[in-house]
């Protein structure tokens, strides 16, 4: 059975990231990005990369990375999710990095591992394993494209299969899209150059599928961290906000909702750890897929519910631009739609566990 707990090493990684984020991320930044989308946020990523080596976490040491596993990457995502930090960790250090690792490309990985460059997989952000099509000329909405240096694009190959190609910044045109979640802004990516082929055919498909699966598996941990922030912040608020001469958290109407939310997060944490743990263990592919689809089907909705509960239980304050709750709601809702909606992951599960629709 996969270890669903956290190791001491993982806990210490968590506290390093949390304290770095507390120092380096202005709490008002996530909301400000809606008004000032041009804000340069690369400094935060540089800090996380230079001080903690996050960019190369999943890259082997021989290629300049840390050689860590999906378990550590999951802990990083929990912390980034809590803070809705605008960083390319998921899109570059997890998804694009997995594309290159599985494709066997060693040329681009050292620059990604050092944080010198960032990359993204150019597919609609709703794509999931086994449910994407090669890009014809342009794709949208693509996450992690704005600010990226390297664009990994599966396009139709000449022989009929997929050609997975790398494009430089000067070989694509980017149009920013006003996004529901401006902390992970989306863009339309149009290919203007020829790019360089990395792999083709089944190897290209495998690399893209593996990257989308890893992204879905670890997105669950981002959702977990975000949901935990919602619960903790709301518990704190309910313990201090007074009405009818009592803290509102002493009313059962509030207590029971927060207890239910806690229960939901107990499940979210287990599902997210199972997805991360099985991905790190690299065991049976079928079990891996079940864990990923289960985690996405569950954690996506859980994070949205956590953010919605946080908003309601904060009352009018929660509805304001000034309070940070809306930044979590926007990320949670966008995450729910990203890398496959819960409904689509349930459809995948129906196949995986032999519960056919008809």
């Amino acid at each position: 059975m996969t270890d669903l707990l956290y190791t001491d090493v993982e806990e210490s990684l968590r506290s390093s990231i949390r304290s770095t984020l507390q120092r380096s991320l202005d709490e008002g930044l996530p909301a400000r990005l809606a008004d000032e989308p041009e804000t340069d946020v690369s400094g935060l990523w540089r800090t996380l990369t230079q001080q903690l080596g996050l960019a190369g976490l999943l890259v082997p040491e021989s290629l300049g990375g840390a050689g860590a596993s999906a378990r550590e990457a999951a802990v990083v995502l929990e912390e980034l999710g809590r803070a809705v930090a605008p960083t390319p960790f998921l899109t570059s250090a997890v998804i694009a990095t997995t594309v290159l690792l599985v494709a066997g490309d060693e040329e681009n990985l050292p620059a990604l591992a050092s944080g010198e460059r960032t990359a993204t997989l150019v597919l609609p952000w709703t794509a999931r394993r086994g449910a994407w099509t090669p890009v014809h000329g342009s794709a949208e909405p693509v996450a992690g494209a704005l600010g990226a240096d390297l664009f990994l694009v599966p396009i139709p190959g000449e022989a009929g299969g997929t050609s997975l190609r790398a494009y430089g910044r000067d070989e694509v045109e980017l149009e920013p899209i006003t996004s529901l979640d401006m902390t992970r802004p989306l863009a339309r990516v149009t290919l203007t150059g020829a790019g360089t082929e990395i792999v083709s055919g089944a190897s290209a498909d495998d690399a893209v599928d593996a990257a989308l699966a890893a992204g879905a598996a670890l997105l669950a941990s981002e959702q977990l961290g975000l949901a935990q922030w919602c619960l903790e912040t709301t518990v704190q608020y309910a313990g201090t906000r007074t009405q009818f001469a009592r803290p509102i958290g002493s009313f059962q109407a509030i207590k029971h909702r927060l207890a239910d939310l806690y229960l939901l997060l107990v499940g979210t944490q287990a599902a997210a750890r199972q997805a991360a743990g099985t991905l790190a263990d690299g065991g049976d592919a079928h079990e891996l897929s079940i864990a990923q689809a289960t985690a996405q089907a569950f954690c996506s909705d859980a994070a949205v519910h956590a953010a919605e509960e946080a908003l309601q239980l904060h009352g009018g304050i929660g509805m304001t631009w000034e309070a940070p709750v809306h930044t979590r709601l926007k990320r949670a809702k966008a995450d729910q739609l990203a890398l496959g909606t819960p409904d689509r992951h349930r459809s995948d599960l129906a196949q995986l566990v032999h519960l056919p629709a008809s």
Partner: protein
Amino acid sequence: MTDLQQRVEQLLASHDPTTTEPADFLGAQFDAGLAWVHFPEGKGGLSLARGRQLEVDALLEAARAPRPDVARNSIGLGMAAPTLLAYGSEELQQRHLRSLFACTEIWCQLFSEPGAGSDLAAVATRAVPDGDEWVIDGQKVWTSGAHGADFAILLARTDTSVPKHAGMTYFVVDMADPGIEVRPLRQITGEAEFNEVFLTGARVHDGNRVGAVGQGWAVATTTLNNERVAIGAGADREAGQIGLVTERWRTDPSVRTPGTHAELLRWWVETEVTRLAGERLRQSLEAGQPGPESSAMKLAFAHQAQKVSGFALELAPEEGLTYHDWTMVSPERGSFLGHGPGYRYLRAKGNSIEGGTSEIMRNVIAERVLGLPPDHRPDKGIAFKDVPR
């Protein structure tokens, strides 16, 4: 081969699991320290981590060895044993732990009363000292299995002049005492799994007291935390109600509709996630005693058992309209999965009431796990005898 595996091999070699009487086999398992490996030596254990019991159980299962009858003796195995270990005297532990594990002693729980349900600390059953004995008078209710029990764990009031939580004491009671009368209580399934128990001048020796006089609430809390683990645990994918539904789905295409498919998958995911959460809780409990976090698992289990068993009726409506048998019986053991779908649907309704209602579980989580401020309690700090009732 680890020491633990060697011990299991030795047990199996000296007591052929296929021919040894179950009680004898279980007694030998206890003597070998393989009953609860996290208990101390001489008390059914080896002072190992709690989680290593899984290794033992897997090996014994593979050898088709007799297992303790958990359904019949859930109170003894799941609650009395850990409570006796934590608070019982050496003599009580020696007298009961082995026979309880061998299921030659069946136990029940005398906690709830007509006036003390969710507010368990309001128990009014009195225990009055008389020489080296206590005389017990009162009424208990919802006592599962009292009709077949040899012993009971009892929570009684020993001091009414202090606030309610401070005036209770915990005892082991012999159900054969002439002062104890058990009357069946029929429930919505038609069966009488539980009973009313009347205690009229029942006598308990002071040596059967568990913990100090006035410490009953702390002792009972240990029992209840273990109860919630016992109720909340489950290991295999698709175990429980969901497994019955998925089996039907896979073998009978006539039940498949788009609406039920969507619902089936939702329950599949929820029950799978609860299974993983149970596994995660088990991993974190391996070293220590269960805390209030186990309340969360009970909540999830109750909710899902109720919803999935109700869904099962809709999935096969013609069958759902029937019922296996309304004849009143007092079954030897409780069953969540037995009989027909109608029984399972009705029995599951108790899951959110027995062992602490889901509403009380939510209070426990909110106050003891999340640290939210306590509710307004008019009986706080007031002597039990002065609390309006």
